[in-house]
């Protein structure tokens, strides 16, 4: 750490240039600030829980300063960590302020040490895990699983992945629209036409257009209105193509229709 500090105050000689090169590589090679801190902490060569977080903070800040000096692009999270460590450093150096709210500098330091130790521990066990005997590499499954005659049945299967991909396929097929049965009360002219075409065959005599309303469209006023207008439009269409005749004895009187005599 002291080396880093002192070198910063001098002009860079060739050796330091080389060191700077390696720094660039290092910043790229690190997986974020925590990874960098863990690497720096190795120089202290002690149990991670007994690590000097203050020293570590200094090292990190020196590292960041130097990276800045070398105009290395640093990701925002490296700078956020630097700011936080600067804050932590001041907390650790100053006598505790009894009026201050929140965790003390020591608590924050212990927490950081814990995070480092935990990350290191996970890396250790990850390595242990991968070093275990593995299927297909160290031990093997049955090479000839028995194929059996007799009962042949087909089962269909799907994995959760299939299910989720299927769902996302539908949901992203077009613009997402929350589901709503919004055409509940719309009776289209096409529907009316289809219905009436089926019925007019038996309309040899004049019959009230209202009697062509479908059963479940008669009571609810909204639905009744929708069906009535659709039926009316449909009857005009049928009259136009010459399938029926229409008549009305006066304004607001019932409209009647009859199959066109042929």
């Amino acid at each position, binding site marked *: 750490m002291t080396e880093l500090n002192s070198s910063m105050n001098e002009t860079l000689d060739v050796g330091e240039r080389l060191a700077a090169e390696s720094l660039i590589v290092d910043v790229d090679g690190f997986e974020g600030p925590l990874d960098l801190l863990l690497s720096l902490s190795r120089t202290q060569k002690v149990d991670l829980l007994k690590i000097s977080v203050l020293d570590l903070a200094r090292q990190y800040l020196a590292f960041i300063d130097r990276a800045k000096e070398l105009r290395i692009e640093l990701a925002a999270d490296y700078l956020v960590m630097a700011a936080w460590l600067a804050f932590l450093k001041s907390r650790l150096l100053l006598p505790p302020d009894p009026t201050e709210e929140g965790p003390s500098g020591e608590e924050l330091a212990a927490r950081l040490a814990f995070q480092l130790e935990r990350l290191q521990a996970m890396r250790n066990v990850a390595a242990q895990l991968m070093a275990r005997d593995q299927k297909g590499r160290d031990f093997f499954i049955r090479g000839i699983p028995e194929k059996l005659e007799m009962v042949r049945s087909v089962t269909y299967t799907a994995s*959760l992945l299939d299910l989720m991909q299927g769902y996302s396929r539908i949901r*992203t097929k077009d613009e997402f629209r929350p589901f709503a049965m919004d055409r509940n009360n719309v009776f289209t002219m096409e529907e009316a036409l289809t219905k009436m075409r089926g019925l007019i065959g038996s309309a040899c005599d004049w019959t009230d257009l209202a009697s062509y309303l479908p059963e479940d469209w008669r009571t609810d006023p909204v639905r009744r209105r929708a069906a009535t207008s659709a039926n009316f439009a449909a009857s005009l269409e049928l009259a136009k193509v010459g399938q029926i005749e229409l008549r009305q004895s006066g304004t607001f009187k019932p409209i009647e229709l009859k199959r066109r005599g042929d």
Partner: protein
Amino acid sequence: MSDREQWDNSSEDSLFEAPPISEQERMIEAILFATAEPMTVRALNERIPHGCDASEALVHLRKRYAGRGVNVMKVGDAWAIRTASDMSFLMQKELVETRKLSRAAIETLAIIAYHQPVTRAEIEEIRGVSVSRGTVDQLIEMEWIRFGRRKLTPGRPVTFVVTQNFLDHFGLESARDLPGLKELRAAGLLESQPAIGPLTSETGEVEEMISEDQSELFED
């Protein structure tokens, strides 16, 4: 693993003694178990360290498996471990052909899982195509979906919900554990561009629907 180094390098084996016959027997046992086809004595000898004798080891191994649930058997001029003939009745249930569900069935199933209880008309509305009778029948037959309560809407249409079998198969504790769109995207399962305005704003919607509309269904 310590054994391994000892027998490992067959080119230098002549310097070592051949492993004990019990060890050779273990090797033949492991090879006959793991290989995908019956092995001739010659093929076995090529696999095991120099100085070993597959024929002799086979004699021992064959004796060891005599009367067991599986036997060492000769198949043509090769050897294999096979189920003892009197055990064949255990294997009858074995032959189940597994096929992937059709895309239509998977999509229908997904909609039921995410939107249950849901009517056929609603499924069709969401998929944008009609749902064939066969698809629903298939899912019911698989016992992955069943009929739920009728909707209190005109026509009182039946609804579909997923079953306990469904949850078991997909390793879910409840249908609530199905990841939402946001999570699907986070896990990289959603290929489409996340930026479409309405899409992002609606991602919460799915979960909301599940937690609220279906709360009756999911309550214990």
